[in-house]
């Protein structure tokens, strides 16, 4: 076994039809600066495309950025596509415009964390740092 620690690999994806990718790019940049390998997929990704990218890139975590309001439809389908591919152990979190009322349901379906508008990027970095420690153990 190697003793070197491997950089965490993270997928940043934008499911659905909104084209506002500034938030996703800001997070991608912040994670890069925190030392992660960030695979950025761009806008208008289907659940199949996101799960497929996660499989081929062997990522530890997926960040979903969504502003269109379609999260209650798209997120369950993404989780389902991940399961289909045996990717049950990939951590999924989300950011964007997600009403407080939807949060409990989303967490129940397996979205581990949700960062709303105005969240400092350091929160996401910290969330993933905890994750990395967990992976290492």
């Amino acid at each position, binding site marked *: 076994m190697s003793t070197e620690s491997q950089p965490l690999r993270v997928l940043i994806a934008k499911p659905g039809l909104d084209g506002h990718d500034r938030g996703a790019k800001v997070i991608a940049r912040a994670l890069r600066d925190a030392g992660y390998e960030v*695979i950025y997929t*761009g806008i208008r990704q289907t659940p199949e*495309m996101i799960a497929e990218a996660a499989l*081929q890139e062997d990522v530890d975590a997926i960040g979903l950025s969504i502003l269109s309001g379609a999260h209650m439809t798209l997120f369950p389908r993404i989780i389902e596509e991940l399961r289909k591919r045996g990717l049950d152990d990939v951590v999924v979190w989300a950011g964007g415009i997600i009403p407080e009322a939807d949060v409990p349901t989303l967490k129940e379906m397996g979205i581990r964390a949700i960062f709303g508008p105005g969240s400092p990027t350091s929160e996401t970095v910290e969330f993933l740092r905890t994750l990395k420690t967990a992976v290492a153990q």
Partner: protein
Amino acid sequence: MTSPLARTASADELAERLTAGDRLALSRLISAVEAGREDARRALRCLYPKTGRAHVLGVTGPPGSGKSTLTTRLAAEYRARGKSVGIVAVDPTSPFTGGAILGDRVRMMELHSDSGVFMRSMATRGVMGGLARSTLDVVLLLDAFGKEVVIVETVGVGQDEVEIARAADTTVVVGVPNLGDDIQAIKAGILEIADVLVVNKADLAGADRLVADLRGMLQLAEERVWRTPILRTVATEGTGVAELIDAVAEHRAFLEGSGSSRQRRADSARRQVRAIVEDRVQRRLERLTAGAEWEQRFASIAAREQDPYSVAEEVLGEVARDGQ
């Protein structure tokens, strides 16, 4: 439905499932290889006899020349011709933070829903030369998985990142018009490794001039049996891609017909063996000379209490012993 695969799965198990066509196992074995895991090396040893069937195509050129877009178009065209395709896209790691943004998938959207394509992004993790440390091993895994064509896209290169020629059967060097007077972007080293030259963005003014300059440089070059063709493409529109694939096929036929294929792969093997040894010695050296005790020794060398030559001699002995 793929059955779950524990992240702790042994490389042997991964290799076995890879051979059976399991894409998740392929993906996880790539990670194990990238991490330099001992058991992954063993798996590579076992898989090696199953490889050598894929045609490995290198795509290199300066940043912004259209390598990703061209790679996507090439993959789509190979798929249209019924070939299964693997892609390895290399992007740079930040030398300051160790992080990387791997953005090649953005331009490869149209391939994402095609299960005949497997695409992996790699960060250079501090290695110079245009490829990552284990790019060759990843190519090998895609080959073992049964991909008929493997396209390796390098980081945006300058003038002497020529490592790709070691990994590829056919090296495609992509240039674009107007990067500087007199083909600044593709002179010396990088021009010499080209088996096929591509002038991308050929719809821009200046393309004719670049083609003429390249032709001039090729005429000055030493006479070789293979005559490097110069092709024009507009990758965003797919123009010239079919012709490019035909040129690659011609190069492949030339390699096989002239016996240079064997020579070329033997050269690659020589360099690969050396690279593996260097890599392992490097990792061992880093491990052997780490820690507080070594910091003290380095300080005492700096204070002229010891000399670096004797210490190096001693380390060399230990590196060799450690390898037994």
